[in-house]
């Protein structure tokens, strides 16, 4: 049973399409809420519900991962060796640290320390950026090796295919173009040692999951960046910091999803 603190509420004789009309209402309180407390509770419940949808969005892909892993366990063991555990571990640490900074920023604004809050938000964006840079290197390395999702996957010539969707177009170049140019530090597409013809399937799942996760990191960076600017301008205070709290929740979920992705993809 919900508790309503104010049964008799402010009069609104003009239909009230202004905001914050009537004395004694803080500027952030929307006219259709009875109290700040109600507004805060509503925002937070809304955010939690949104995060549930995020979990379910990734849930679908985790289920696909689980099903294909149980169908082709050897594929997952073989293909996951292509992932760089060190880079993954660095990224895990970076994201965990960013979760700490964002939580700390909420604490700071609760205590009214706007400046600290601002710098912690900036630090969070910076850490998220670092995560993306590492991801960039991981992706480009795989592209160099011809590791693409699904039917784009490049194999060394001579790999035997039984699946009708794969054929000669999936063989890497016979001539090493880079070597001809005298470039020593390069990779040849198809030179990854994978022979399992379903490897493309594994990397489809890998790219989809980490890609959509990366998209969430990007969106989080933008949101936190906006929060940082607004904090700098003094929009938030110890009385009202709901957006920071909510974006913080979102960021933790992005973090938690990675915590599951890392071992499932890189470690086992």
């Amino acid at each position, binding site marked *: 049973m919900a508790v*309503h603190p104010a049964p008799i509420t402010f009069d609104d004789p003009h*239909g009230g399409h202004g905001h914050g009309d009537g004395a004694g209402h803080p500027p952030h309180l929307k006219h259709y809420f009875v109290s700040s407390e109600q507004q805060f509770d509503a925002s937070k419940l*809304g955010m939690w519900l949104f995060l549930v949808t995020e979990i379910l969005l990734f849930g679908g892909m985790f289920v*696909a991962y689980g099903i294909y892993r149980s169908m082709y366990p050897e594929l997952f063991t073989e293909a996951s060796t292509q992932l760089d555990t060190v880079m993954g571990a660095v990224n895990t640490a970076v994201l965990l640290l960013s979760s700490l900074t964002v939580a700390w920023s909420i604490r700071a604004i609760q205590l009214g320390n706007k400046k600290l809050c601002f710098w912690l938000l900036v630090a969070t964006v910076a850490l998220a950026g670092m995560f993306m840079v590492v991801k960039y290197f991981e992706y480009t390395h795989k592209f160099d090796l011809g590791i693409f*999702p699904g039917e784009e996957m490049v194999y060394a010539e001579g790999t035997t295919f039984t699946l*009708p969707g794969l054929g000669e177009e999936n063989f890497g170049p016979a001539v090493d173009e880079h070597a001809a140019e005298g470039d020593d530090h390069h990779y040849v597409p198809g030179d990854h040692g994978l022979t399992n013809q379903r490897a493309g*399937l594994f990397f489809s*799942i890998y790219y989809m999951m980490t890609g959509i996760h990366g998209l969430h990191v990007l969106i989080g960076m933008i949101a936190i960046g906006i929060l940082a600017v607004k904090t700098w301008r003094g929009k938030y205070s110890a009385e009202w910091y709901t957006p920071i709290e909510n974006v913080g929740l979102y960021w933790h979920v992005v973090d938690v999803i990675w915590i599951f992705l890392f071992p499932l993809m890189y470690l086992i």
Partner: protein
Amino acid sequence: MSTVTTAPAPAKTSAAPAHPPGHEPVHNYLLEPGPGPDVKGFARVWPTVKAWATTVDHKRIGVMYLFTVSVFFAIAGCAALLVRAELMNPDMDFLTADEYNRMFTLHGVMMVFLFIVPSIPASLGNFALPIMLGAKDVAFPKLNLMSYYIFLAGASLAVYAILSGGIDTGWTFYTPYSDTTNTAVLPMTMAVFVAGFASILTGINFIVTIHKMRAPGLTWNRLPLFIWALYAVSIVQVLATPVIGITMVLLAMERLVGIGIFDPALGGDPVLFQHFFWFYSHPAVYIMILPAFGVISELMGTFSRQRVFGYRAIALSSVAIAMLGFLVWGHHMFVSGQSPLSSIVFSVITFLIGVPSGIKILNWVATMYKGSVWLTAAMLYSLAFIFLFTIGGLTGIMVGALAVDIHLHDTYFVVAHFHYVMMGGTVFAMIGALFYWWPKMFGRMMSETWGRISAGVTFFGFNMTFFTQFILGSQGMPRRYFTYLPEYHDLHQVSTVGSWFLGLGLLMVLFNMIWSLFKGKPAPGNPWGAATLEWTHTTSPPDHHNFHRTPLVTHGPYDYDVLFSGDGYGGDGAGTPAPVPNPEVGGPQEMGKSVDLGLSQPKPKHD
């Protein structure tokens, strides 16, 4: 059920004025805010459009949704008529096979994703939910408007997909067919993805509003059953829609870069797609039907002037259906290559879900017992709903039975079954709900006479169209057939002719609506004698912000005796019984006559 209490503030003893203080309809949400009276002619158009396009008022957003989904209902309905016309004869060459395939896909995709899913919740729910809760708006009004625009964006993508050649996969998008067909699958999957976002946002908004914005005294036990239904629906929307979202993204990536997760040619599993698809699309069936349950509960209570029988059972069965609805998706796949064990488990749970649905039907019928049943057009649609939904539910038991489903799966029997539930259920309930809430939305009464005639024509046409399809299906006529064997000819002809009656009935409803906007009698605040807040505490149409004072709720949603107990309604903060309760309300002889009961408002001024 609660007992009646008097208002906390002293009631005014003077005779009720025609317009209670503070309730002169100057703030009518349809007109205000907008250009002032000094602006005349076409100069009014742009400011009015701008005011509507940027509104965050849940009532206006509801009306905009209503208009939008009606357009898609009309388009998809026309597609259905074309499909039926093609099936008039087996060798009809009215459409080619490919055009026919695009046409039924258009019908399915539009009806499901652009009409039924948002129909009742986003239009009537958006309009009525905050008022029924005694709130000024939903919890996130801007998000509400955003969800409308997201929906429009999704709908535009769907229209683009159709204009760029259409799509011929059927609304189920089964792989590998949808991987390989050279029609516009990509924009259509994106349309479904985007429209899904709108659905999620509406769901979140409703859940938060119901949890946090109820008026004082409006406990969970006093929530109108429509609210309970919307609550259950919102849970399903929030939990199921993300899965169709990711499924559509995976399908789109399949088409774009060939990721192969659902493509057997690359080692993927097409049956996995069906699991993903139905994990959303079966709960989506409850997104479609649960709001209808809520509507029928309101209509049966109000028009029987009787407490809804088994209030708690109906409320909780809505939530039970929502939860169990997540565990039955596999009953779409009894012959699709899932393991027999899963089929058996899904069948058990499917039957479990039949029980709460059955309880509801019996409770609605029992509600009329010893009541005072007013056979308005809305009530006729409601009774038609009960009849049709019972058939839909019982045939659901047939297709849920493992062995029988082997024979009936993917035949016209299934087509008839889900049309009895979706069309005979949701659409009939929605039309009933429109007759019911129309006076509140637009301040005008629809024609009762034509409403009753349309109920008869629609009911007749519907049964003629779809009952024949049960027989066709059990005789073995598969669905999605462009042409058919001669033995099915007669029944197909009956069905096609029936579809014309059905279309005629729906056109009558449409004309009734348009007619009422211009010629309908002005509606009093509470024309039906209902006892929920939107009728007892607001004018028709409601003020810009619904209530001048937050109402205090002192009785249950179906305690009609409170309406007749003289001192009225419990307080609304100032003790003003806004729209004055009147025992005369809702007498049959008032219909069609313009009796000013002191409740009606002057005709809204359009100058």
